[in-house]
């Protein structure tokens, strides 16, 4: 762990708080900013929350839109009108002890300034606001990432590939000019390299644009064939140095490759081993821990395919199965937000297709730096537009997720995308290449120089200087091709034309060929010359490492190949036979007629290095835990409580995310029952078969449904990663349960810093253990997931952020519960027990920028009991609404439910008002009970040991807490929706 652990308030002592509040009023004590000095009792809802004028009302828009260069908008986190006595001290880095004298108290005698001397609500960034952080993107750079500019600029790029015949011909054979340059003898070419005899036979190739097979194109600039590093050549030049270090390979790893092969690898083989043994592909640092998910897996009949395949598959009943998985695309999304996020969606969708399923929805869990940071301004709009641009074009509804702001993600945003697919049990597909003689078909987009920054090292070191030019390292997505791939694959599956299938993601052809071969008969012969290229100058190493999107690889019996290609042609998806399954146990690849790869595929795919990295708790952990929130001054009267409700409702993490979610299509496919901002996304399971030409069956739609939630809390995990992972699981489990679903299975995306840091490794080990233990207790298996390490800037790691997805089943989705308070005069009941728990809470974060103490107590038994009560109550038709309590506690839950349904409520708080409103104790929900159902619900609760407390009734147009305060819905709405305006620029 670094000496300066990054967390919400890990501000560098070198930078005073005013570093973070530029653009806001002076913060010096006594220097009272202009503007309203007290919360007016004005009916104008805006007034109560507006940051100091004059810039404040524009601040949120600017924070997410495109502010003038150099102008830092007022942080939207800043309701300036703190209650006079509710004036916490300027917040400090958690790592520093809070000064005794600084401990604020609600004496009521605080000086008169209507806001704290230093506004406490803007947590300092882990580093000074980076103009420095992203110099090349500051200011106006947000512009290129707005949809108008970014998503559509590739007209030329796509047009050349996918434009159908402008003048349609009979049979619709697009009579296009060849996509690739026609082979021609370059002027300086000496002609000594013949077109390889291995060029694909015409009947095995379908090019919509180029009916004739395109032989490899020799280039003038290219050195002659002698440059190809062949297997024979490797035997003859055992001492030739290869740039394995530049490819991220350690000395001992390279030695091991040499041992395996009995010689030095060729540069192509090195390309394969270096990517397959990378952390990303081999899980070499995490493997020893991830085994717990299998070792501690609960007994369940639901799991049809467990970890290790592209995605897990679970039985949801009635012959249906569901596959789902979440994956990170963090680093690309920081470099190029639009394409990084878009291709993140594309990658996870292909994982789901690979299982034989129709993708039916996506979700996304997003984390950014502070909402008002300039770089967030660059990253967030691009990421959101990218997710929308890709997912919307695929026709996949986006049904939920999270958007979280925290300084620790400033230069390391997290973009975790989830996809869920449905299939029949008998349609499950595997990534395997069995049966010698079966054909290996590469289909989808052409292979280009995307994402092969690493390979250029090989090219430059091994070949001529001219090829050393930098290759782009972020992939570019083509959602239209992916949509065609989805439909094409489903038709291929429906006719049972594939015996094995694998998508191409990280490590591209290297990964697909080694994994397919390793899981099949063991051998494969691949002719790399046949790989259709978007850039004919690509070297074989680059072809092997290219991460070009929208590609799949299938293994097909020889007599099915013709039909396979026919279906691809119908969907205008290029498909090429590039190889054949063998029984040699070797993966052999040829290039220009020479063997350049000859390896046992399992050594690359499954037998990568495994590290038991050292771990130990971060040095500052005890100190952070000792700094409990008990010392923070609390609101002490009705007015302060009221303002705190509004303050939290309008803070970045709790404010309405409509601006984000309105850019996602939540309706397409017509099966979305619930979507954000509901607790979980709920889908009806029904799928017209491809056999009927897509026409829905005449029968009544199925009533089977699923619910999905994706949750994480980096602050909790920072305080206690074991509990933090369990709390994320608890929340996702609860979110699914409050819709009335039965939680069934788990996926996860584990976002951490560098595994080479023992503190981070300890966080990781703890989180995995916590998650595995909790899944066992709750009886829901982990079906798969993803690990993202090296999420850090310099030595500062992000908060450990396990993001957990829980899938649940609705046997009758028509009974699902919404969180909306929409039925007047129904009784509100609080389920679960509220403790005084503020460690890592939103309240401490928003009001004080404080992170310390311990997170809420994990109580899995109580979670299970709560879920069973709600499930039974739904079956009995007792409930009209339910909403889980989590970030922001009861206060935020009531705000959201009132605004969602458009009705207010009148409640009486059972205990200490502050604790009841803002504590984040787990295993709680607020439910609306239909008239007459109260006693039956009470009986259910008693039987399950769940505490039930009557709160009040739904109705009216304000949120009223008896004896304390009342807030009109209009004022709540303004507070909640003000920050991230739903139609920002």
């Amino acid at each position, binding site marked *: 762990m670094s000496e300066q652990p990054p967390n919400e308030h890990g501000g560098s002592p070198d930078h005073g708080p005013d570093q973070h509040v530029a653009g806001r009023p002076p913060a010096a004590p006594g220097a009272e900013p202009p503007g309203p000095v007290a919360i007016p009792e004005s009916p104008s809802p805006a007034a109560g929350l507006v940051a100091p004028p004059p810039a404040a009302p524009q601040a949120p828009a600017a924070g997410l839109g495109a502010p003038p260069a150099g102008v830092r908008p007022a942080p939207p986190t800043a309701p300036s009108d703190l209650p006079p006595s509710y004036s916490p001290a300027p917040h400090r880095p958690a790592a520093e002890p809070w000064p005794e004298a600084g401990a604020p108290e609600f004496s009521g005698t605080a000086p008169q300034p209507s806001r704290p001397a230093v506004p406490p609500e803007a947590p300092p960034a882990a580093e000074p606001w980076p103009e420095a952080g992203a110099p090349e993107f500051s200011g106006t750079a947000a512009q290129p990432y*707005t949809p108008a500019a970014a998503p559509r600029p590739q007209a030329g*790029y796509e047009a050349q590939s*996918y*434009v*159908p015949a402008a003048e349609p011909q009979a049979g619709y054979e697009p009579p296009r000019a060849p996509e690739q340059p026609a082979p021609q003898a370059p002027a300086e070419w000496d002609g000594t390299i013949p077109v390889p005899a291995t060029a694909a036979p015409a009947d095995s190739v379908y090019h919509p644009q180029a009916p004739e097979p395109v032989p490899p194109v020799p280039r003038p600039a290219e050195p002659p064939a002698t440059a190809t590093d062949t297997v024979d050549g490797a035997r003859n030049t055992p001492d030739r140095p290869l740039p394995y270090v530049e490819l991220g390979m350690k000395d001992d790893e390279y030695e091991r490759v040499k041992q395996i092969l009995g010689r030095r690898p060729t540069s192509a083989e090195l390309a394969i081993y270096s990517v397959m043994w990378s952390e990303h592909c081999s899980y070499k640092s995490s493997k020893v821990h991830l085994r717990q998910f299998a070792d501690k897996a609960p007994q369940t009949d639901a799991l049809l395919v467990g970890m290790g395949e592209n995605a897990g598959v679970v039985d949801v009943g009635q012959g249906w199965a569901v596959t789902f998985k979440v994956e990170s695309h963090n680093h690309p999304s920081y470099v190029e937000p639009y394409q990084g996020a878009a291709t993140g969606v594309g990658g996870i969708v292909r994982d789901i297709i690979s299982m034989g399923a129709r993708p039916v929805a996506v979700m996304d869990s997003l984390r950014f730096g502070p909402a008002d940071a300039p770089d967030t301004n660059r990253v967030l709009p691009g990421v959101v537009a990218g997710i929308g641009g890709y997912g919307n074009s695929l026709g996949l509804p986006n049904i939920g997720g999270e958007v979280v702001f925290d300084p620790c993600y400033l230069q390391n945003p997290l973009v975790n995308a989830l996809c869920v697919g449905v299939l029949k049990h008998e349609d499950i597909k595997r990534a395997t290449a069995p049966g010698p003689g079966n054909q290996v078909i590469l289909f989808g987009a052409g292979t280009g120089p995307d994402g092969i920054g690493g390979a250029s090292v090989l090219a430059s070191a091994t070949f001529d200087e001219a090829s050393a030019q930098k290759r782009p390292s972020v992939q570019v997505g083509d959602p*239209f091709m992916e949509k065609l791939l989805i439909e094409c694959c489903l038709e291929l599956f429906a006719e049972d034309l594939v015996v094995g299938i694998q998508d191409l993601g990280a490590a591209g052809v290297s990964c697909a060929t080694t994994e397919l071969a390793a899981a099949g008969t063991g051998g494969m012969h691949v002719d790399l010359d046949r790989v259709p290229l978007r850039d004919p100058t690509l070297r074989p190493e680059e072809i092997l490492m290219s991460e070009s999107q929208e590609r799949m690889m299938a293994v097909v019996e020889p007599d099915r190949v013709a039909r396979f290609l026919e279906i691809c042609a119908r969907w205008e998806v290029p498909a090429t036979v590039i190889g054949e399954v063998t029984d040699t146990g070797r993966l052999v690849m040829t290039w220009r007629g020479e063997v350049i790869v000859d390896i046992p595929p399992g050594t690359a795919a499954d037998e990568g290095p495994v590290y038991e990295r050292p771990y130990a708790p971060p040095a500052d952990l005890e100190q952070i835990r000792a700094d409990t929130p008990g010392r923070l001054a609390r609101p002490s009267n009705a007015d302060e409580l009221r303002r705190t409700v509004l303050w939290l409702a309008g803070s970045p993490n709790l404010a309405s995310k409509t601006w984000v979610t309105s850019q996602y299509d939540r309706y397409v496919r017509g099966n979305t029952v619930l979507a954000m901002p509901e607790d979980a996304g709920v889908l009806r399971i029904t799928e017209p078969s491809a056999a009927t030409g897509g026409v*829905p069956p005449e029968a009544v739609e199925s009533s089977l449904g699923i619910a999905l939630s994706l949750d994480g809390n980096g602050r909790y995990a920072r305080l206690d990663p074991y509990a933090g992972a369990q709390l994320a699981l608890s929340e996702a489990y609860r979110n699914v349960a409050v819709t009335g679903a039965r939680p069934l299975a788990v996926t996860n995306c584990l976002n951490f810093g560098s595994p080479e840091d023992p503190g981070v490794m300890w966080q990781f080990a703890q989180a995995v253990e916590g998650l595995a233990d909790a899944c066992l207790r709750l009886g829901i298996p982990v079906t798969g997931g993803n690990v993202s390490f090296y999420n850090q800037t310099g030595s500062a790691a992000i908060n450990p952020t396990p993001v957990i997805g829980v899938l649940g089943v609705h046997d009758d989705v028509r009974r699902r519960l919404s969180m909306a308070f929409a039925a007047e005069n129904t009784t509100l009941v609080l389920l679960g027990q509220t403790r005084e728990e503020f460690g890592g809470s939103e309240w401490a974060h928003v009001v004080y920028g404080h992170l310390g103490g311990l997170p809420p107590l994990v109580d899995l038994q109580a979670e299970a009991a709560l879920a069973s009560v709600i499930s039974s109550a739904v079956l009995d038709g007792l409930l009209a609404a339910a909403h889980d309590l989590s970030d922001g506690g009861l206060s935020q839950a009531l705000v959201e439910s009132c605004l969602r349904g458009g009705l207010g409520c009148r409640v009486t708080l059972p205990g200490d008002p502050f604790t009841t409103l803002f504590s984040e104790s787990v295993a709680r929900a607020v439910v609306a009970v239909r008239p007459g159902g109260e006693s039956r619900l009470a009986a259910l609760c008693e039987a399950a040991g769940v505490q039930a407390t009557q709160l009040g009734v739904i109705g009216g147009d304000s949120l009223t807490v008896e004896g304390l305060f009342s807030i009109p819905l209009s004022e709540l709405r303004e507070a909640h929706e003000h920050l991230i305006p739903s139609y920002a620029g």
Partner: protein
Amino acid sequence: MNAARVGVITFPGSLDDIDAMRALRLAGAEPVALWHADHDLRGIDAVVLPGGFSYGDYLRAGAIARFAPLMEQLVPAARAGLPVLGICNGFQVLCESHLLPGALLPNASRHFVCRDQRLRIDNADTVWTADYSAGQELVIPVKNMDGRYVADEETLTELEAAGRVVARYLDLNPNGSLNDIAGITNEAGNVVGLMPHPEHAAESLTGPSTDGLGFFTSIVKRLVTT
């Protein structure tokens, strides 16, 4: 009595074809899947061009789909009176095909927008809106990237004067369309283009309302009576 057979054309990149077929079925029609590359309208009684991103909308939205082989059959049939409803991308294809005037540009906000939209039916005399009454208000989803309806002054004046604006946005114009136009019809009233998605408001379980069903029941009743 045979159910009305209503075709739904699938182009590469069409997305809401399944939804349109479901809505037609709920309205009592027999949906017929039509493929863009075919040359045969299969004897259908009416056609829906569904939403989506045909050919990725990488060129102008709808600009490539209009050249599909099946459109060569559809355009003359529509001019001869075949009822055609274009939804979202389908509306864009109809404009590109010159079956409807004007064009659809990227939203004024330059963001994709998906929201439950209040609309008012201004023309209940087309074959697709006869089940509504003029002035009736609906809530159905709008979701588009290129939904800003524009036309030259003369065309707009003509549309307004002839009552050819079928539906208009209320409360909030989600994409910057001129005159808050959400949908228009041709002179004959058989071809209607609509930016919002009535097929997503056909079931109470999955839609914000069932207000959209009227577009589909309108055509079913018309076809049964003729």
